[in-house]
């Protein structure tokens, strides 16, 4: 083979092999880090996986926010008004986090049904509702109104 052809071939092969390796790692990393969103109703139905990072969103139930003394651990309940999920979180809550306001939490569901959150997100202003939360509330409202479906 012509030496220049040969060199080109080496370059092309290296690129192909390198890119395939990269593609393999990209897909692998992506698979491990996809966090699926679940409404409280689906968590209550047992649809959400245990010990896999997921997201849960809904309204913070009124009167459910409890702070533990001498630590930053808080417990609260996320509801879509059809079902509830108990959440435990240790850390500083975002500025606009409040009861009767929308929130999305990321973390792990435990065997006991308590959701241990690593991250709590709240709306970033008064009028804003995370779209996933409003969709979850709408869906829950539909199921409550038409229990036969």
């Amino acid at each position: 083979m012509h030496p220049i052809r040969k060199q080109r071939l080496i370059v092309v092969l290296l690129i192909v092999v390198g890119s395939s390796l990269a593609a393999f790692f990209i897909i692998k990393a992506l698979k491990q880090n996809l966090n699926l969103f679940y409404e409280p109703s689906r968590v209550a139905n047992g649809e959400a996986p245990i010990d896999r990072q997921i997201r849960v969103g809904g309204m913070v139930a009124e009167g459910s926010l409890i702070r533990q003394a001498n630590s930053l651990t808080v417990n609260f309940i996320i509801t879509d008004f059809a079902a509830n999920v108990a959440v435990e979180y240790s850390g500083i809550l975002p500025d606009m986090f409040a009861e009767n306001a929308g929130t999305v939490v990321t973390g792990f569901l435990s065997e006991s049904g308590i959701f241990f959150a690593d991250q709590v997100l709240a709306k970033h202003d008064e009028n804003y509702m995370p779209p996933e939360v409003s969709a979850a509330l709408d869906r829950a409202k539909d199921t409550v109104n038409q229990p036969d479906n």
Partner: protein
Amino acid sequence: MIPEIGHFSLLLCLPLALVMAVVPLIGVAAKNIVWMRFASTLAIMQWVLLFLSFLALSYSFFIDDFTVKLVTLHSNTALPWYFKLSAVWGNHEGSLLLWVFILASWTLAVGLASSSIPLVMKTRVLSVLAMISVGFLAFIIFTSNPFDRSLIMTPSEGNDLNPLLQDIGLIIHPPMLYIGYVGFSVAFAFAIAALLEGRFDAEWARWTRPWTNIAWAFLTVGIALGSWWAYYELGWGGWWFWDPVENASLMPWLAGAALVHSLSATEKRGVFKSWTILLALLAFSLSLLGTFLVRSGILVSVHAFASDPERGLFILAFLFIVVGGSLLLYALKAPIMKGGAVFALISRENLLLINNVLFAIALTVVLLGTLFPLVSTALDLGSYSVGAPYFNAMFAPLGLLTVFIMGFAPFIAWNRFTLLKQQSRQWILHLLLAIFLAMLLVSGLSHQYVADFNFLAFFIASLCLWLAVNTLSHFFFRIKHGGLSFHSLSQLSLSYYGMVIAHIGMAVMILGIGITSIYESQKDVRMAISDNVSINSYRYQLSEISSVTASNYDATRASVNVYHDSAGEPSRLITTLYPEKRFYRASRNMMTEAGIDASLSRDLYVSLGEQLEPGVWAVRVHVKPLVRCIWLGAILISLGAILATFDKRYKRSSAARSEPGLGSPSNH
């Protein structure tokens, strides 16, 4: 009256841009010089009109003209004048007006500055820019008019600017970012013009390079400013979140970085032509994709002002026309491009090829991670989000590999590189020096922050120092070679200085990212007055909580004393920080304002969480070593790109083109 003038100028721009998109091209086809020249005149007119329009909107914000709906929605009489001005682009409509105004400014610059470019090429470039302008003007005029008025029932007070945006960083971040984003339209227009003309020579690359460099430099600054802003203004100490909107700006940046380098190979050696053209098309398409992601409201973020599906559809349609049209043209015309010079396996050409492959992979990582959740939601496959670990896991190896290879960059000549014994000895010496310095640095850090010697940090630091040592030594060798005088300094081309500074900037930035990520520490704690919390050898003491009232917000302000404790010495007060929790009255928003003591070696960072019980607060404290290097590195990268833009070979007229650039293999 003033808003009407602004609105009228804006409306007038649309037919003007339409004429500019069509008539000069007919001139090209008909070989009519007068019609072709018309493009430059129209570029000036378009700029003047948009400048007037932008001025009118700014004036309306400045005088609190609440008959303009946009002013009512996003401004307030209590705002200081500079925030009233930045409120102009702190919203969907105004930021789009800024977008087209910047596009008009780039168009004007091309019209005025490119006297060395043949008229036909220049005319085509200007017309393509005008086509883009038509799209965005139509978008503003039909879906997002900033001059909408409410003359009946004019409110007496406005809703206020989102407090997150009331900040110096946000006055300059969007214009910088847009100058970069929109600047890629020039490279795009040059690529389209080249495809139309069937001309892909070294000269084409030489015309395109300065525009690309400067746009990329601005984009770099814009992204760095955004990161810096998020760091101190969002209040929680993170400097990059892999938020889709951040990713939207990172994608054109990565494509731009690849383009800047592949253009150099195309200019110097006439290789990678068709890939360079494709990258130029891609960089601007990704800018448009970014605009679509941010402006359509499909993303949830502080950047998402609007959530009007009509607007999203408009940009999406525009995106399809631009991407589809340009790719079609590419598919038709690219095959006539001929391959360039032959080069050996180890050569600068191949090094640049590796650079491009790495940036293309990084781009794919971001593109996939950003679009996957949107696609899966749109197809009803479930609502996913992609976690930051995905991006980190991919970017860490890619970044380090890039840094390692960059270390060789200045030494490898075009065409063919032969490894001399002397050269390999020098490299081994540099590597040992880098390892030694990294050892010192990481031991120092471990001692300072009372942590174990971290081998990953050591590895990262070695690679970054390898890049820095290699680049600097090449630089000093060349000066010494020329006789260590001012003359020899001025003999080196600005492109070369640009490369040296930008590559050192990369080393500084990656070092900052690596060390901060590994050695930072953070604690969330409950604190009452006079409580202490220690991180490493730093002790934070909450000394006082007070109330503050400003013109547009009320705040709770904590005073936090930071002491340095070390064994055997009395503790020393370093600084007092004043983190605040602000309540903005008009918009009823809460804001966390961090207290930061910044220095090159480390940042001390405190932010105030919520009040847990009377006198007891949740507080977050950080120590962040070398975090400033991240932005310092970005500034150096951008400075390097700007220096390279002003290399004198770009100013030479096309008559002098036969002379090769300074005759040295190391000129970029």
